[in-house]
Structure formats: structure tokens, C-alpha cells
């Protein structure tokens, strides 16, 4: 360190960062919000720090980048205010989040991005990035002001839970977004094939008398989009991928060299359609929980790099809209506080390496959003979390910070507790009784 004076010094932590190929006991120093030094063993005795943290041998990871979060504020702040969302994120180890455009009003203009970004910066806590709407009002009819939103800081453009059906419009959006060097993030579900759908199509749906959504509803739109990416050279991202067909299509597209990425979320790699009998609306999700073969294919996609990111797909749902018969319930679930331990279940299950999981939670999504975060490296923003990866706990929605309590993982035993989170070296969360 040049100055020999750090604002924060963390010692005796297991520095773990796939992007920097880092794994070992060491120390990390922060100055002016950035990583000013790091190394193995103990720091130079001459290094002074404003605050000293003993990592206790725990994992020090880059802060999580959750690229798929639906804020309820503005429009439904009674379900979850921006402040509650950011506090929940911090507790979940999420130091940066990208919010989807389906607020009320919709984030389809630069003023909305200015407003939400400003409010988030005043609240402090995790970094918040906006994803602008692909189309005005998310109605799928006319392109939104993508250029103005890009200037205002939109890191990409996204649809709501409806695909852009008009192929010509989609082609133009891809072309225009490519000019702006921003990814187009799409929810892939053929509108007609999924319109009345309540769960994954198949024998289970038939037994339950629920209307099925075939896996093809997702792959039809994805394959069309991939053809349009080939045509336009655009950068494209498939959101919450849930089917084997999609994983295969993405794998081919990447081999072909298309600029294509994808994310998925814990429900689609930990659960399958067999959770639905019982009609518990916590399992009403969009896309629906798929077959076991789909789930395994999603895990393969995460393991081999076909899927680049794990997101929470966090969404506050009005509890009254969950206390309904299954098909009438609103799809979606909270997830930002459980993203990390549920993702770590892939590691303890032996399916995916810790390197891949952390990559998918940090540098993977950061690269998609064009952000310089997600990495423990000299000069990078000091966004980090200290993780106790050993301690087991049980997911209880009653303990959530967010007031949005619907989770398909109620009662699920998990491992991994965030002890503390920092953004730009400033501590934004510490677990009770930690230091």
C-alpha cells in the first residue's frame, strides 16, 4: 500500500474470488471506497486502518450482484418499500441489484430512472441499477426511450412477465439496444401458449386439473430471439431460464459465438413441478416449476457456463393474492434474502463448484450489466461480504427483513450466513452479535 493508511482492514479472512482466482487466508484493505491492497497471510505491520475487522477465518467474497429484482416501490410500496428492499438485499449479501421495470409507473423513461436512482442513493446501502422497459408501458407495442434511459444509467432493457410477441418490434429493439451497447433482457414465454397456464404442462398438471404451460412456450421465444440476435448482432440475455430446451439452445448459441447470456434463480434449480400437488400458492411461479429433467439441465447449464448468472427473481407479492386457489394466485416470491444460501446448496450437493456459484453471483452478472464490480482486485470498488459458510439455519419467512413473505422455501434447511456486507468499504449490514 502506498499510503499505509486504510479506512478499513480485514484480516484473517479466506479471500475467495473466482474472477481474481483467489482462494486463501489473507487480508484486504480499503481506501476511498476501493480495494487498496490485498494479500495472503498478514498485512505489513506498518499498515494502519481506521477500522480493523478480524475475519475469523470466514469467507470474504465479492458482494453479490443480483441482476433480477422487481422492486414494488413506486406503486406498491405498501408491499415492500425501496428502503425495505435495500435492507433485505444488504442482509442477503447483495451489494448491487438491478431492478426490473414493472413498477407503477413503469420505468420506461429517464425521469423514472433518475428518480429511483436518486432515492436509492439517499437511502444508502446496496448499489441500485435500473433496467429500463423494452417497450412503452411494458405493453409490447412501441419501443421505449432506450437511448435516454441509457444516458440516465439504465444497465439494460427488460420485459415484464410477457414476451414481446411482435418479431419486427423485437428485431428493432435488439438493433437499437446494440447501438447503445446495452443488453436486451427477455422473459421468454410465448404469450398464447402460456396465457391461461397455471403450472408446467404434463402428467402432474393433468392429475391436478391445472392448465399446463409447455416447456416449448419458453424455447419458442428464445429460439426466435436467438435468430434475431444472429440477424442484428445484438447483446441478448435470457431471464430466469427454466427448461432443458432453453439450456440446449443457449449452449448452441454460445458455441456459435452469439453475444448471449442467461440467468436462472433458485426455484428452477432446487425445485420441480412435484412441489405443486397440495396447491400451495407459494409454488405458483412464472416461469412455472418445471420437470426434474429440466431442473437437472439448468444445473448442468450453471456448471458448464451456459448460464452466466444466478439471480433472486425477488418479487413482493400481495399476500391476499397468494391466498387464492392455485391458478388464481399471483406468481412470484421473495428471494433476495435467501439467494446466497440457496445457491450454496448447489455446492453442498456437489452439483456445481463453489467457484462457479460465486462467479454466477458476482462477476457473471456484473459483466452482463457492464459493471466493474463483482471482483476482489486492486482498485475495484470495495463491495464485499463476509460469509459463514458452515452454519446451518432454516428459512423462516417470519424472520425476513422484507415484509414480502411468500417463499417456496419455507422451512428449508440451508447453510451459509452473511455476517457482514460492505459497499464501497462502508458497512451496510452486520449480523446480530457479529463483532
Amino acid at each position, binding site marked *: 500500500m502506498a499510503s499505509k493508511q486504510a479506512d478499513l482492514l480485514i484480516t484473517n479472512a479466506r479471500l475467495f474470488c473466482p474472477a481474481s482466482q483467489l482462494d486463501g487466508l489473507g487480508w484486504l484493505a480499503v481506501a476511498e471506497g476501493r480495494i487498496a491492497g490485498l494479500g495472503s497471510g498478514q498485512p505489513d505491520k506498518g499498515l494502519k486502518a481506521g477500522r480493523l475487522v478480524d475475519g475469523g477465518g470466514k469467507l470474504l467474497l465479492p458482494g453479490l450482484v443480483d441482476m433480477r429484482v422487481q422492486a414494488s416501490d413506486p406503486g406498491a410500496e405498501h408491499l415492500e418499500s425501496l428502503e425495505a428492499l435495500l435492507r433485505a438485499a444488504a442482509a442477503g449479501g447483495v451489494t448491487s441489484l438491478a431492478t426490473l421495470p414493472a413498477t407503477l409507473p413503469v420505468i420506461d423513461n429517464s425521469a423514472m430512472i433518475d428518480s429511483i436512482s436518486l432515492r436509492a442513493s439517499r437511502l444508502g446501502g446496496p448499489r441500485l441499477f435500473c433496467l429500463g422497459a423494452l417497450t412503452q408501458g411494458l405493453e409490447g407495442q412501441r419501443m421505449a426511450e432506450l437511448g435516454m434511459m441509457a444516458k440516465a444509467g439504465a444497465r439494460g432493457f427488460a420485459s415484464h412477465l410477457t414476451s414481446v410477441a411482435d418479431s419486427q418490434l423485437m428485431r428493432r429493439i435488439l438493433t437499437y439496444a446494440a447501438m447503445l451497447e446495452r443488453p436486451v433482457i427477455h422473459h421468454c414465454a410465448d404469450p398464447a401458449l402460456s396465457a*391461461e397456464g*397455471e403450472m408446467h*404442462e*404434463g*402428467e*402432474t*398438471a*393433468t*392429475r*391436478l*386439473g*391445472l*392448465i*399446463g404451460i*409447455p416447456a416449448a412456450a419458453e424455447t419458442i421465444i428464445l429460439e426466435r430471439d436467438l435468430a434475431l440476435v444472429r440477424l442484428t448482432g445484438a447483446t441478448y440475455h435470457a431471464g430466469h431460464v427454466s427448461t432443458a430446451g432453453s439450456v440446449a439452445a443457449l449452449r448452441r448459441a454460445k458455441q456459435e459465438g452469439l453475444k448471449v447470456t442467461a440467468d436462472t434463480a433458485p426455484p428452477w434449480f432446487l425445485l420441480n413441478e412435484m412441489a405443486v400437488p*397440495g*396447491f400451495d400458492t407459494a409454488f405458483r411461479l412464472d416461469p412455472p416449476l418445471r420437470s426434474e429433467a429440466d431442473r437437472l439441465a439448468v444445473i448442468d447449464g450453471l456448471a458448464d457456463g451456459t448460464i452466466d448468472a444466478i439471480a433472486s427473481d425477488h418479487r413482493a407479492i400481495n399476500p*391476499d393474492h397468494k*391466498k*387464492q*386457489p*392455485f*391458478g*388464481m394466485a399471483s406468481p412470484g416470491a421473495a428471494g433476495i434474502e435467501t439467494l446466497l444460501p440457496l445457491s450454496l446448496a448447489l455446492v453442498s450437493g456437489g452439483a456445481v463448484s463453489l467457484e462457479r456459484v460465486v462467479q454466477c453471483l458476482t462477476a457473471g452478472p456484473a459483466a452482463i450489466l457492464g459493471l466493474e464490480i463483482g471482483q476482489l482486485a486492486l482498485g475495484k470498488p470495495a463491495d464485499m461480504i463476509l460469509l459463514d459458510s458452515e452454519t446451518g439455519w432454516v428459512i423462516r419467512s417470519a424472520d425476513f427483513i422484507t415484509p414480502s413473505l411468500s417463499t417456496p422455501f419455507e422451512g428449508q434447511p440451508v447453510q451459509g450466513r452473511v455476517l457482514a456486507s460492505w459497499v464501497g468499504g462502508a458497512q451496510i449490514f452486520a449480523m446480530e452479535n457479529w463483532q
Partner: protein
Amino acid sequence: MTKTGSTPTAATLSDRHLLGIQGLAVAEITALLERASYFADHPRQSFADILSGRTIVNLFFENSTRTRVSFEIAAKRLGAATLNIAVSGSSVKKGETLIDTATTLNAMHPDILVIRHFASGAPLLLSQHIQAAVINAGDGRHEHPTQALLDALTIQRELGRIAGLKVAICGDVANSRVARSNLWLLGALGADLRFVSPATLTPPGLADMGVPVYHNLEDGISGCDIVMMLRLQTERMEGQETPSQHEYHKLFGLNQQSLNRAAPHALIMHPGPMNRGVEIDSAIADDHEKSLIQRQVEMGVAVRMACLEALAEGLA
């Protein structure tokens, strides 16, 4: 089957609700059928002491005449006070949730709640929020257990058995809770089942359940003892399943010519209400030699008496 031997006693169920055939043990089904048969044999006898002092609410979120009346008569024959609530959209439109409705009703302490709802799983949801015993009188495309029980009772009383009979369930299987409940019930009792339906009205995965599926009516009902026609559920259809009712009638409607392919003694069933001239020709529906349709309605009351009684056994 009960004309000789001892009088069957009230059936007992392990669950305090009757939400579907899935979840019933064969012994429970058999006990319900035996008791129902006894009720059917004694249409003039008073059983008013069985549910005397009990209150039964019929909560119908879908229009129904026959099922609601059948439950009402069954309840009255058992001596219960009944109340019919038709929620044809009024409360639903006002935004009241099913659970609100349940909570409201719960405060009035009914003993048994009979529910029909357009959403699969709605009776289960209701049962989780109400003290009363819940009977599913049809939920979405999921189950219609008393219909399957009355179908089984009708068949058993006409032909003396169910095991080994060749039964064809024909028509709009995809949208039919009757087809599903009968699949579980007649299957459990050993019937040799098959489905006949246009490919667009065949639910995915049906063939994987080990039941043959035919797309040709005459082939499907060939040699069958029972031909059960389902109602074309136009209200549940999205308008793209078949080209026209005209074509449906030509290809999948039961007429004398197609019926000739069934066993010579074949009997016709239909859960009603019928679309005459669509899935079934009037001449066949009204053929008293062959049609069991009126018997099904008659058995409906007896079956519902047995079900109400069985649930009352579990009441505090």
C-alpha cells in the same frame, strides 16, 4: 347388493373432508357405495335423525342445478338444515377472496360445507381455513368425487360389478373433472378403462398413466360394457380445441351407428347436462333400455346422503 345380508352402517373416512377420490382408500369407497346402495333401496324411509340439528351450506361458485339440488335433497332427507349460496361473481367481483368467504361462513358455524368452484384446488384451500367438513362438489378440472361415486354405484347396481368391466370415457377429457375422478375411482375398483377424445381435448401425460387413449370413437368403445359420454365443456374451452360442434358431433358424437361397435348389452352414461346433438344423439340419450342417465341422477342423491353421513360421523 344390499338386498340380502346385514344393513350397512355409516361409512367412516380417515379424512374429515371429502376433497377428491385421490386420497380415498378402496375400503372407504366400498363402504360409501354400500351405504349409498342401502339408501337407494329405501327411498321412502326417513333418515332424518342422522343429520338432525346439523347445518349444511351449499356454496356454489359455478352455476349448477342438478348437483346443488341433489346435495340439497340428500341433506334434507338426512334431516339437516340447508342453505344455498350462489356466488355467481358477486362477491368475487367485489374482491372478496375465497378465504374471506370461508372466514365469514365459519363464523356462522356450519357443520358441512359443499363447495363447487371453477378453480382446481379451491375446496382444499377452503378446508384449510374452515372448521366445517368440506365436500368437493366439483373444482375446476380437478375432481368431482360424488359424481364418480354415483357413476360407480349406478354401474354396480346395473351390472353387479365394476372389476373387469370395459369402460370407455369419451369426449372432452381435458376439461373434465368427472373424467379424472372416474379415472381414480373406477381404476381403483378394477375397471378396464380407456379414454376416447380428440387429440386437442386429451390432457398431456394421460397416456403415461397407463390408460389407453383412442382418437376414434368407434375403435375406442369397441366391445365396451359402459360408454360414458362427457359434456363438451364449451364454457371452459378457449375456442380452438375443435373446428366446430358440427365436426365434433360427426367424429366424436355417440349415435346408433357408433354405438353398434360397443358390446351388445352396452349401457350409456352421461354426467349431464347434455349437449344433445353434440356429444350424444337424443335418441340414444332417451333410450330407456340403454341409457343410465336418469339412474345416475337418482343414485346421486343416495351417494350424497352416504357422503354427508360419513362426514357427520367425524363432526364434533
